[in-house]
């Protein structure tokens, strides 16, 4: 019992203590250079425009100051990142070097043996090829393209399409880490759903995250054409362990007229990670984007999926949960631009903070002058599990249109002792009672996830809740 109670804290500590062996790493003192970027591009055998894009992004990156708002990022280990993005670097450490707590966590989350080494970052190959290929095959029969974005770039047909869209929603000028992403991005998914095609099972990136370096600077590009329908699931609940402590991925989603895209994510980065991920969707007339987002793990997180509603009557909904434990400062939320008449958006978030963790909800709703007749509602509920944790709500609204209906509500609360007593009076232990209440609080998010992911998320909460007492 005593061991369990300290488990979460232990994961944290040992992550900081964890060191890969020196061999296999070149020590680079200089920052990112054009040469490194050229090397990355060459290695990937990319078209010339992509190299140009990378170099331009690098230039922008080197000029960008660090953000002056949000959680501090002083702990970012940029030297390691340079090491990481450099091709030919052999990432392989051995399973023996992975901290026991991480191994235990895999066990407790029920991650299959074969996947653990991949998730721990010590085995680049996890044998999911079969699942991936089956999924890809079924999708292909419907005319859907589902592949790695680097592979897609090698096909002239898809290359043209990628070139037209790539980093147009998230330009390198957007922020420092978008620029970094533009320079060093590697891996990620490409999905193309043609007009009118509706896929009735979700595509899951989990099964193709086996490229070396994937999941660090990955780029996801999804195009859902008019009248088409897709559910895409990114990530998994196991803590992903990486040698470099920065994650700066980018997700660009294009939703056509009357099309529908649901984008679900559960992220659980190891607790040394700076998660500076950028996600954006653009919706045409009557198109709909649904974000389902679970943010766990990482040391610092900035994450605000954004919907740009450019078509009349297009819609966005965001359902998210953030869990900030000891040593974590997670700044999450959602941004919406109501950029056409009669658009609508809903943002519903839950945040949990515990053990001194800081959870900040930040949202931005912008109604442009074109947004007449639009509506948006923002709701944020925070739960603080002790006196040392912190929860903030920073909603911003910029309304420049007439006849719009925008609402915001926020509540911050604690678990009432009366609730704990009630549950305990029916024979439920204190820890179980707290976990039950927190899982109930998270339920609006988990019920939107496919069953196996919902179960994983509940397990994850259970794991995070251990040691919440005493």
């Amino acid at each position: 019992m005593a061991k369990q109670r300290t488990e979460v804290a232990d994961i944290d500590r040992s992550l900081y203590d964890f060191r890969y062996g020196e061999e296999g790493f070149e020590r680079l003192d200089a920052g990112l250079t054009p040469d490194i970027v050229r090397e990355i591009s060459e290695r990937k055998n990319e078209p010339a425009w992509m190299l140009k894009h990378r170099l331009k992004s690098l230039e922008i990156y080197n000029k960008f100051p660090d953000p002056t708002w949000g959680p501090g990022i002083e702990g970012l280990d940029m030297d390691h990142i340079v090491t990481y993005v450099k091709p030919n670097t052999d990432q392989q450490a051995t399973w023996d070097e992975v901290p026991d707590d991480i191994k235990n966590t895999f066990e407790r989350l029920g991650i299959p043996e074969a996947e653990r080494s991949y998730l721990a970052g010590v085995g680049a190959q996890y044998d999911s090829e079969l699942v991936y290929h089956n999924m890809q095959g079924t999708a292909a029969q419907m005319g859907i393209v589902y592949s790695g974005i680097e592979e897609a770039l090698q096909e002239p047909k898809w290359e043209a399409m990628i070139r037209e869209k790539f980093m147009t929603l998230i330009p390198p000028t957007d922020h420092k880490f978008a620029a970094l992403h533009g320079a060093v991005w590697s891996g990620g998914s490409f999905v193309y759903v043609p007009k009118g095609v509706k896929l009735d099972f979700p595509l899951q990136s989990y099964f193709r995250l086996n490229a070396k370096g994937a999941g660090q600077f990955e780029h996801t590009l999804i195009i859902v054409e008019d009248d088409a329908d897709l559910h895409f699931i990114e990530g998994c609940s196991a803590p992903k362990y990486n040698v470099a402590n920065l994650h700066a991925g980018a997700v660009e989603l294009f939703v056509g007229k009357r099309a529908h895209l649901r984008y679900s994510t559960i992220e659980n980065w190891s607790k040394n990670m700076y998660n500076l991920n950028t996600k954006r969707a653009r919706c045409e007339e009557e198109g709909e984007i649904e974000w389902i987002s679970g943010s766990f793990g990482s040391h610092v997180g900035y994450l605000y999926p954004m919907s740009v509603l450019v078509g009349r009557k297009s819609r966005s909904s965001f359902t998210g949960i953030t869990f900030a434990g000891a040593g974590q400062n997670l700044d999450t939320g959602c941004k919406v631009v109501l950029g056409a008449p009669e658009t609508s958006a809903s943002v519903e978030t839950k945040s949990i903070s515990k053990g001194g963790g800081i959870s900040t909800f930040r949202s931005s709703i912008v109604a442009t002058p074109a947004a007449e007749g639009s509506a948006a509602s923002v709701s944020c509920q925070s739960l603080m599990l002790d006196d040392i944790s912190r929860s903030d709500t920073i909603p911003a609204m910029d309304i420049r249109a007439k006849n719009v209906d925008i609402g915001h509500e926020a509540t911050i609360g604690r678990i009432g002792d009366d609730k704990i007593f009630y549950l305990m009076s029916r024979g439920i232990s204190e820890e179980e009672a707290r976990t039950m209440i927190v899982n109930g609080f998270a339920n609006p998010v988990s019920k939107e996830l496919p069953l196996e992911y919902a179960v994983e998320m509940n397990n994850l909460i259970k794991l995070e809740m251990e040691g919440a007492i005493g």
Partner: protein
Amino acid sequence: MSQTPLLSVSNLTASVDEKTILHGIDLNVAAGETHVLMGPNGAGKSTMGHVIMGDPVYTVNEGTITFDGQDITELSTDKRSRAGLFLSFQAPVEIPGVPLSSFLRAQIAGRPGLEMKGKEFRRRVKELAAELDMDIAYLNRELGVGFSGGEKKKVEMLQLLLLQPKLAILDETDSGLDVDALGVVSRGMDAYRKATDGSLVIITHNTRILEHLKVDRVHVMVNGRIVREDDASLIPWIDANGFDSFEREAAQAAGGAEAAAQASDETR
């Protein structure tokens, strides 16, 4: 009452925020007996139920609680439940996002003789729901959320019947106000009585809930003290006369004690 009582509260003094609510309470309940704890508003009746169940809001300053041969004064609430104690709440809480069925399953998990497989559990709950005239659709609803007073009572009674405790304390202080709730509680008590030989402690200030019930002992509580103990004949008497006389006596006794205290102060 010859054998050791199932529940024995001895000289129990309890407080909240430094304010003493219960003053030296003694209460013995034997297996299979039905006791009634009565008294005016604010007498400390609900506190009594909560302290016996181990509500951490209250501090036990003195005295002991023994249940089924075990001193439970320091035992955590969940363990008291697992030892066979039950407290139904006057106002059960709401837990958003937790379906009633999950809550019920968590209660019986790991209880010898009560843990059931999915199918068996559903059948059992269906039976009990029928007995209480409760819609089975409740099971998928979030615990307590949007439930009416009567519905909440049904859920409490359902748990009483599912857990079959050795002793159940039913805090029905305000149930008398709602005819529906009253009916639900009566039905629940009947079913509990039929199904088990467990004991009941009914907390109320309204005697209507006690009709059709064979009561063994009645305890009257005023200002945190038990001021009177008698058999069931006390119920119609209270029905006719209320608690006024008990309150007057208590006030006089307190006044007397104060006067005595004053006197002893003066002699010092």
